């Protein structure tokens, strides 16, 4: 299939979701631009006659521009939570500079003779502003708005990282599940959107100011009316927000949570926020109450979130108990019982290598290591929990060992360019390439078991939800999870469908 026909069939299959993401993207961008315009232009007008403060503001907006957008999102989450609000705030912060700078430059560079003429003819301050200064600065102002709009539409793809939705969802999905079609759809649509907006503003800039103002006002009133009406008509239900990290596996899990909770109580409405950028975004969201639940690993809690447990106990049960107790003590959170599968580091080899050398455990590898070459994820290659520690514990020396992009190392293994790589036990490629995971017989790798994390206050208020989520404790084997990841990441099936199939097949759902 050519790229184009792949794109078309992807769009056909997902068109309602895509339309929704497109609409979210447009509304996030539009709201951000409206707020930006409402802040930046009046500010520039107010500062025309206060040049020193004006210059100061130019500096400030310039500095804001240099802060990486991910950092802005991270800073905002504890204050305003997740979703569209912090995304819009971040976008406004970015868009203010071009709009303010151009408006200010436009207003302060008007031919002084024209300003003197306006003064000498005794026009009112309003007349001077609306009939002389703003129209003369308008080309500059509009070019500022154009620059900002293109910038906002591009940057709005980051909103997806914190559950804001939009076209970035497809870009992230594409990156995570190695689905180039989804990635292209997201990227191309947002590029087209930016070009269209650029063109639209150019066209609108030729419409007289008065008509433009009236048009905008009408649109805003219709928009507000629609939103308020929609809010009022919505039935009163309890909303629960469940989020997940980037990737297919967390998305499958949170879809299971949603199905279990909603089946049990139809008055509860679960909102899913899949594909969050990282652990800290999610944890801050949980702390601030913007997220109610998200699945987290025991190892991650012990290594990144709580203090005093740098080493994860090799016994999964003890590791879970440590994580549960510490996160409760230090953050007032409840960590439910984990599922069966462990998503640990793993050492994998091809089936033929395993058969030929009779490899079952990592200890077995020691005998033949001198004949094998390895390729590893750069992080794994450096961390003491990774390759260096592994070598020391088991005492082997590979013929050669190099680092390789995580996405490429499985392919290199399958193509027999290397013989050993690292991975995660639930990676779908293990199934895809029929690889063998060597048993960690000396218990070197820390254990990562997944379980729902939530505030203790939430758990106390929602015992029914806790009971539903507990149904998964001790369930879902490694091969189950591998299979589901394979369905989502390699076969590009929807996480919600894969999750529901599993729940039905195992009689969790009627």
């Amino acid at each position: 299939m050519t790229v184009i026909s792949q794109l078309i069939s992807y769009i056909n299959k997902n068109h309602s979701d895509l339309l929704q993401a497109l609409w979210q993207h447009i509304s996030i961008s539009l709201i951000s631009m409206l707020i930006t315009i409402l802040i930046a232009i009046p500010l520039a007008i107010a500062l025309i006659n206060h040049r020193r403060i004006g210059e100061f503001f130019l500096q400030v907006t310039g500095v804001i521009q240099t802060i990486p957008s991910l950092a802005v999102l991270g800073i905002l989450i504890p204050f305003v939570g997740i979703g569209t609000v912090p995304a819009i705030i971040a976008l406004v912060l970015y868009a203010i500079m071009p709009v303010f700078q151009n408006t200010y430059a436009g207003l302060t560079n008007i031919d002084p003779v024209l300003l003197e003429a306006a003064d000498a003819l005794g026009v009112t301050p309003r007349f001077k502003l609306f009939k002389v200064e703003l129209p003369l600065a308008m080309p500059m102002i509009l070019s500022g708005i154009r620059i900002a709009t293109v910038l906002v539409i591009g940057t709005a793809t980051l909103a997806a990282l914190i559950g804001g939705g939009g076209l970035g969802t497809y870009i992230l999905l594409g990156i995570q599940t190695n689905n180039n079609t989804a990635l292209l759809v997201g990227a191309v649509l947002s590029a087209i959107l930016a070009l269209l907006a650029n063109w639209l503003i150019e066209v609108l800039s030729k419409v007289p100011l008065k008509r433009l103002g009236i048009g905008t006002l009408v649109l805003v009133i219709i928009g507000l009316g629609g939103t308020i009406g929609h809010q009022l008509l919505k039935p009163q239900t309890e909303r629960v927000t469940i989020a997940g990290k980037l990737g297919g596996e967390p998305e499958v899990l949170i879809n299971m949570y949603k199905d279990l909770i909603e089946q049990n109580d139809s008055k509860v409405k679960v909102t899913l926020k899949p594909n969050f950028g990282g652990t800290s975004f999610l944890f801050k969201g949980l702390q601030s109450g913007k997220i109610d639940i998200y699945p987290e690993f025991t190892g991650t809690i012990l290594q990144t979130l709580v203090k005093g447990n740098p080493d994860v106990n090799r016994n999964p049960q003890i590791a879970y108990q440590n994580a549960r107790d510490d996160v409760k003590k230090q953050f007032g959170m409840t960590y439910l019982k984990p599922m069966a599968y462990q998503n640990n580091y793993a050492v994998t080899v091809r089936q033929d290598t395993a058969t030929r050398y009779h490899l079952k455990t990592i200890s077995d590898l020691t005998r033949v290591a001198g004949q094998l070459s390895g390729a590893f994820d750069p992080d794994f290659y450096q961390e003491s929990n990774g390759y260096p520690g592994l070598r020391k514990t088991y005492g082997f020396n590979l013929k050669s060992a190099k680092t390789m992009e995580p996405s490429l190392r499985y392919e290199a293994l399958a193509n027999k360019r290397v013989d050993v790589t690292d991975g995660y036990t639930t990676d779908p490629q293990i199934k895809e390439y029929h690889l063998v995971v060597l048993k960690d017989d000396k218990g070197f790798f820390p254990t990562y078991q997944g379980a729902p994390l939530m505030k203790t206050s939430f758990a106390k208020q929602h015992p029914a939800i806790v009971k539903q989520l507990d149904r998964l404790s001790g369930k879902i084997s490694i091969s189950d999870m591998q299979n589901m990841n394979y369905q989502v990441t390699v076969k590009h099936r929807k996480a919600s469908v894969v999750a529901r199939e599993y729940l039905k097949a195992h009689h969790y759902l009627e």
Partner: protein
Amino acid sequence: MIELLNVNKEYQDQHALDHLNLTINDGELFVLVGPSGSGKTTLLKTINRLVVPTSGQVKIDSKDVADANVQELRRQIGYVLQTGALFPNMTVAENASVQLDNLKWPADKKRTRIAELMTEVGLDPDHFLDRMPSELSGGEAQRVGIVRALACEPGLVLMDEPFSALDPVSRRQLQQIVINLHRDLDSTIVFVTHDMHEALRLADRIGVVHNGKLQQVGTPTEILSEPANAFVSNFFADEQQTDQLLGQVLAAGFGRTAKADEPGTKMVKGQSIFEWATALQKSQMDQVIVDDKVLTDHDLIDYLASLETEGDSH
């Protein structure tokens, strides 16, 4: 009547206007002339408070302009700038009615008034009112500038070197328009220029400004015949040699008092002897009338001859 009483303006210890006193009468076309940097424009701008004096008073009809609402004050005063300074975002009609808009004139009254003035400055309203300033020549733009200044029927019009950027032909045409408008309306006009020809041609009275001080105030004839000091005589010296005006001819004692209904082309003191010669040739008559004096063709020959002797004595 405009009175400047002991008006002083300092910029960083420099006197732009140095304790200056001046009275401009109602209905007068008063020209402030001087080299660039002399303070003449600063002086003009104290009248509508675009410049606020460091000390001293400016009164219009005995009312101190410092006490007036500055926008209301300016809305009653016409103002013409150097380049026309039309707003590039408005049509000619919109530009011309800026003051009328701010004075809240009704639309039909505005339209009639603007059309009338456009015709008077030689621009066809049907052709010009909907044009944008970018489509006008310099002379046309400045004509619109004059229409804008006169639209609200102001009792006082201030003109700040309005023709300095124009070519000589447009400049002469516009000077004539100002002379005609001043004759037809009874507005007081205060006109700033660095061009002494223009000053002599237009002025009822001239104020010569130099170093922030008034060097001399008088009619063109007085200035030319009795310069108050070396600066004034130097400033007009060039004029005396090249472009002789009828005022100077009269001041030199030529001409006789005209009888009632005396025949002859009517001329003004500001016109040159060359225009006088042209008038004589065109009218096929041997005399012209300047105010209440008659100048004959013999006067022209005698005056030219007297210049030659003057030239020798120099």
